[in-house]
């Protein structure tokens, strides 16, 4: 079976839409944005902690994608390319703000209260995880988000973050270790 035959149909559709976008087809552009914006906004919201900023950055990602449409070559998946642009915009956003934005976390996540029901404990645990992820250093946070949330393989994360695969593996290992430390009240020491 040739590599072309192994390409998932959604990638083929992306290639088709991108070639139409490059030739000025605005309907193809709308379809492409409609197709990819949910994951992009989700990733960006996790990174910057604000829905409004995430939407602004996602808009900028698609503007940049459109500018580069005629030069785009399908060497990597379009989703990887979009995340790559988004990651660079996140880095710019952090530089602009002068620090890494984090959502408010004033204390170590508290373990679930035994009096609460199971659903509430799960909600608390999820919140504790998200707050703990916000405390990670930028590279570790991005790498763990792309691996766990966006389900990207190491190689694609490396392309998106413009870093060697070995660095990505290191960041993810450190992120897991740090998260276990932050959540030791729930899971015990790493």
């Amino acid at each position, binding site marked *: 079976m040739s590599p072309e035959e192994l390409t998932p149909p959604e990638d083929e559709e992306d290639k088709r839409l991108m070639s139409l976008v490059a030739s000025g087809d605005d309907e193809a552009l709308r379809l492409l944005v409609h197709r990819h*914006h949910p994951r992009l*906004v*989700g990733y960006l919201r996790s990174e910057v902690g604000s*829905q409004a900023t995430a939407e602004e950055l996602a808009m900028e990602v698609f503007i940049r994608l459109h*500018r580069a449409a005629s030069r785009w070559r399908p060497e990597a998946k379009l989703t990887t390319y979009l995340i790559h642009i988004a990651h660079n915009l996140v880095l710019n956003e952090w530089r602009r703000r002068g620090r890494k934005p984090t959502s408010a976390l004033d204390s170590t996540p508290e373990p679930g209260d035994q009096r609460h029901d199971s659903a509430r404990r799960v909600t608390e645990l*999820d919140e504790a995880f998200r707050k703990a992820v916000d405390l990670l250093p930028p590279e570790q946070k991005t790498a*763990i988000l792309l691996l*766990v949330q966006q389900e990207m393989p190491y190689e694609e994360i490396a392309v998106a973050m413009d870093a060697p695969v070995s660095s990505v593996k290191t960041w993810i290992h450190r992120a897991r270790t740090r998260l*276990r430390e932050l959540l030791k009240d729930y899971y015990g020491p790493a």
Partner: protein
Amino acid sequence: MNQPAGHDFDQDLARALAQDRAVPVPGFAARAVLAIQADRRRRTVLRWGSALTTAAACFLAVFVLQGGPDDALAQRARALAASDESAQLSDILGFADELSVLTPVIDRHSVVDVLINPDL
């Protein structure tokens, strides 16, 4: 330690982060297309503006460099130069300056010594 029953770390991490895996925004695609169209128009205007400026500069350069000599203007310029005494003086002084530059440096005292003592 309060380990939630039936949970493991990786599974809980995946569930917590998966909630933001995809966040559809109603009307986002339409807004994005409008923003992209505006960006396209802005870049077109900039590109044409830049091209027109370059073309104007090229046209001006060609006009200046390839324009034929204007005899009447040249004659007037020559007449003015001829009647300008300061320019003539400047020419002479300029010539003198060039001579002084070309003249080798001479020790004035040694010349006087030779004139006073022809035996030297």
